[in-house]
């Protein structure tokens, strides 16, 4: 069983202390934790992620770069949000912040009942391990490992029992229709198959949110479409929240439920896709 935070009222954006996340407008109740990959779970928390005046500034020599500049955004559970923008608009930086791979210079990121900005590196690792899954443009599979071993990697990190691992790996690979190629190495697969493996690896720990950074960027359009269809299927089956960075607007409009457009580190617009 896990504790889930539910908003009682509209969220008031303001800085939170280390422990008083959603201090006045949440109630806590218990929800079913057994995440069955074959059924759509009822979302227990309508909010997946809330960004509260997030900024990420770098200093390059004497130049200050505002990669993300005062972005506030609310992503609901079950959303398929596409982050659009040109190169250098800050969309990938924002995704890294939401994925707990980077820390904001200022602002708060509320996810899974925590303010990511205030978590220790160990807590952030735990968040990445148990709450989210990540898919990258260049797949990022470990070349010396087989498909099954690549997919098993998050389970090793989460210290899941050996006995349970095989079943979960098989289940994840079956979902992406690669259960016949478990012993193959990434170099023996096509780009689309590698990306499907990466999706299986992202799903195997049963995350609540799936982050995809240009998942079709290295694929031809037909394969890209098939990957997007797979993501949609996963979202609908598992009730997962998907946040995808892309610069392909037509693809985003076709598959995403919401679009957020970034430019020069700022959130230019945000709304429903269709």
């Amino acid at each position, binding site marked *: 069983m896990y504790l889930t935070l539910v908003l009682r009222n509209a969220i008031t954006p303001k800085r939170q202390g280390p422990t008083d996340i959603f201090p006045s407008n949440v109630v806590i109740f218990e929800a079913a934790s057994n995440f069955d990959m074959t059924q759509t779970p009822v979302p227990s928390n309508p909010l997946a992620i809330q960004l509260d005046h997030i900024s990420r500034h770098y200093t390059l020599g004497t130049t200050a770069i505002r990669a993300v500049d005062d972005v506030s955004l609310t992503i609901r559970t079950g959303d398929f949000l596409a982050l659009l923008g040109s190169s250098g608009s800050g969309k990938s930086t924002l995704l890294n912040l939401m994925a707990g*791979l980077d820390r904001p210079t200022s602002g708060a990121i509320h996810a899974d009942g925590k303010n990511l900005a205030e978590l220790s*590196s*160990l807590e952030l*690792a735990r968040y*990445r391990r148990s709450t989210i899954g990540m898919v990258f443009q260049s797949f990022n599979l*470990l070349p010396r490992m087989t498909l099954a071993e690549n997919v098993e990697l998050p389970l*090793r990190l*989460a*210290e899941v029992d050996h006995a349970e691992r095989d079943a979960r790996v098989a289940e994840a690979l079956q979902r992406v229709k690669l259960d016949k190629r478990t012993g193959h190495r990434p170099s023996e697969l096509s780009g689309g198959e590698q990306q499907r493996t990466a999706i299986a690896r992202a799903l195997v*720990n049963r995350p609540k949110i799936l982050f995809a950074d240009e998942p079709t960027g290295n694929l031809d359009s037909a394969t890209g479409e098939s990957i997007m269809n797979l993501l949609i299927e996963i979202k609908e089956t598992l009730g997962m929240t998907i946040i995808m960075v892309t610069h392909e607007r037509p693809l985003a409009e076709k598959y995403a439920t919401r679009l957020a457009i970034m430019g020069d580190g700022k959130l230019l617009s945000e709304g429903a896709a269709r």
Partner: protein
Amino acid sequence: MKLRDMTELAVRNLRESILRNSLTTLGVAVGVASLVAMLSLGVGLQQLASSRLTKSGLFDSVFVTPKLNMRGGPPSMASQQGETRLLDEDARVEISKLPNVIEVFPQVRFFSEVRFGGKPFATMVAGMPQSSKVSGAFDGMKGNFFSAESGDEAILQVEFAKELSPDTASLVGKTLSIRYAERQQLEDNSGGFSIVPKEKELHIIGVVETEPAAGFGGYGNGRLLIPLGTALSLRATQVNDLRDAVRGGPSKPTYASLTVRAKSPNNVDAIETAVKKMGFGAFSLLDASKSLRIFFSVFDLLLGIFGSLALAVATLGIVNTLVMAILERRREIGVLKALGAADSDVKRLFFVEAGVMGLMGGFGGVLFGWLIGRALTLATNIYLKRQELPTVEIASVPWWLVLGAISFAVLVSLVAGLYPASRAAKLNPVEALRYE
């Protein structure tokens, strides 16, 4: 991550760059081998020296004499330090009952004229107990050791044998006779005795190179050795007999000195103290033994330092290999972190890789070191055999050296892995994922 998974991943990573990692591990192995070979040589030489000295009976023995003032001072001086007692059979039995005492036997040495080939030769005869067979002093002797505690047998010290015949080996199997002064107790029970010349034939059964009955405590070198039982039965006049006659009193004979053999050199100190408390003079070479141990400890330390130099160089190889691995696996580290690996997981992964290299290198090094020791022993023994000398074990790899060397290799490797592991753990996942 669980240690089992961590180790599995580490071994897989090491296998990936098998040539580079094998060369690094070989470097560790060479370092450990150098350390093990040096220390095994030190340990072997120490064991060789200790065993020779221990077997000689000098370091596990206490020499007991009556506490008498022989230097002409007032008698009270001798008794000031404790009660003066006679060193007789009762005393021998009492001392033999002390804890950790293996045996107590009298030193029987007497002057004799040896007749061989019709010529007289003057020498000192010494009685040897059967236990001296394993002392090491008789190793490599020509002929055989005494067949029993008593018997008409003699072993000649080689220098004395050369006086009898230049071809010492030819003496074995021949017969000689000794003339000695037998002490015969007077019947009036006054403590006095008469001295009667006697003669006894003995079969020469061996010739020994060493000096098993070296001069000790004022008693000259025994150059003609006979079984202790035989020596006692001859009742030959010894240095203490005149003292007994002057002392008068009981006719019971006393011993000039006793040798007490302890179970180990560690027991010598306690036995020496106990014997002194009983009112006898006691002396041991324990202090000399302690000095020997100090010498070998310093010797081992120096050998260890020289041996460790190669291992120190090998640790630089580990640092280099792991730093290279970080550069090559930067993106992989980023992926691991993105999938939820904590900094500590990445750090431990590199630590385990360093530890595995250390462990493998340690095992290999111990094996190499042992082989080097065997080769040194073999070469030494070939040389000794050519010189017609008994063979020796100059290198020894005891279990503590095996465990110590492997543990040391792992420890040194972990220390070498500290910097690379910490560097890998600190990698920014976003930058690592961007790395091409």
